[in-house]
């Protein structure tokens, strides 16, 4: 989909939210929902940052780490890909305290979602690194670069472009998964909506607003990733197309 269409959709979603806000009956839901949305956004951003860090480290560890590090990274990736985010949240929030480690719910949310998405992200990073042409690695060797120098200066900058679209998908997955945190006592957007619905039974306006808010957030994300992709591939295009 073109970036204009996406921006059009975003404008429409925000316009509908604004129009609904002019209605007396809907206006009173807005502050609570926005409060929830802020928490959702905070968790999504911090979780995404953790996911990037984990994804890059796990990928490098699996590709180049010494055997124990490699195993550790593989175990991490398989556990977090192989079990659901909900179970991971519950485990960190309800089971870990039984072993004497109590974490704040917000921290659990960020850590669980970040680790979960980071596990998928490591495959994205790994694939992108391996997709860089073999000749690039060989040129680095011929110039006597160390592994770290090759990765940092030559391979990762080229792999970066290939990583952007799949990371965009993962960030959206993460954003949607934040709705799970309402199950560990956090008042995110989904939680606020349920709470208001139980109190007022105004199901249609509440969930319509919530739907539009999630849509707006993911559209912002998609548009941002598209712009990033466009910028990054421009740098490479100067080097590719002739």
């Amino acid at each position, binding site marked *: 989909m073109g970036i204009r269409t996406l921006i059009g959709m975003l404008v429409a979603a925000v316009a509908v939210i604004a129009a609904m806000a002019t209605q007396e009956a809907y206006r009173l839901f807005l502050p609570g929902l926005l409060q929830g949305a802020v928490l959702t956004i905070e968790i999504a951003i911090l979780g995404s940052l953790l996911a990037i860090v984990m994804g890059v480290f796990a990928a490098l560890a699996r590709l180049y780490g010494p055997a124990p590090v490699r195993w550790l990274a593989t175990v991490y990736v398989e556990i977090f890909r192989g079990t659901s985010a909900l179970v991971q949240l519950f485990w960190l929030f309800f089971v870990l305290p039984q072993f004497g480690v109590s974490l704040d719910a917000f921290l659990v949310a960020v850590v669980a979602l970040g680790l979960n998405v980071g596990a998928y992200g490591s495959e994205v990073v790994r694939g992108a690194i391996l997709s860089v042409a073999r000749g690039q690695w*060989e040129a680095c*060797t011929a110039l006597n670069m160390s592994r770290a120098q090759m990765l940092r*200066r030559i391979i990762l900058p080229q792999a970066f472009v290939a990583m952007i679209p799949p990371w965009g998908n993962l960030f959206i997955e993460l954003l949607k998964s934040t709705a799970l945190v309402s199950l560990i006592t956090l008042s995110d957007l989904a939680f606020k909506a349920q709470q208001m619905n139980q109190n007022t039974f105004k199901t249609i306006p509440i969930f319509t607003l919530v739907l539009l808010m999630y849509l707006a957030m993911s559209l912002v994300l998609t548009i941002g990733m598209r712009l990033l992709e466009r910028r990054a591939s421009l*740098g*490479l295009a100067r*080097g*590719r197309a002739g």
Partner: protein
Amino acid sequence: MTEQPMVRFENVSKRYGALTVLDGLNLDIARGEKVSIIGPSGSGKTTVLRMLMTLETINDGVIWVEGEPLTHMKKNGTLVPADLAHIRKIRAKIGMVFQSFNLFPHMTAMQNCIEAPITVLGMKRTDAEARAAELLDMVGLSQKKDHYPSQLSGGQQQRVAIARACAMRPKIMLFDEVTSALDPELVGEVLEVIRKLGREHDLTMLMVTHQMGFAKEFSDRVCFFHAGKICEQGPPNELFGAPKNERTRQFLHAVLEAG
């Protein structure tokens, strides 16, 4: 006292599974010598260069550079397989130019030439740039220093690749069919740069080539490879003028036939 060879392949073998690509190769290359490697496809020519560049490991034997082992290191008086630190120390003397250029696409010609001098040799940026500018001038591309690889013709890209390799000040330069990917009209400009490099720099050169005319005119010695062995070697006049081996004759005949 005879001088150390710059490069010595001592009984080097390379196998891929059951396939023996090089079989007990012995080859000495003197300091400053220009050696061409010719031979049919699959005879192991590229493999020789790749082993010396440490892009391939070897299965048997030892490769020496200026009297020091490259593939091995000395430990308690015996040779053990080299670790990465040792390999990098010796490898610093070797540079390579590839058939497919392998320039870094996200960097300009200038950036390609200063990257490794700065990150690997720890040179100051201004010094690296000054050296790169000289080298780009030598290959006739000072005008194109801010161009990205895609904005350059194949011949220009290959000349940048030569400048990039030279920027690391290697003593030994390896060329693997560096004109094979080029349109015929661009071959000459690259060969001219290699000639210049041979004249002006004190380099030991080892090149795999299908350009028989160039091999004849440029090299001190030509090695004809066949099935993973040196089948015949000698000064270009002798090898091209009066090949002794039947296989060499057949190969040269076939190549000249093809034009």
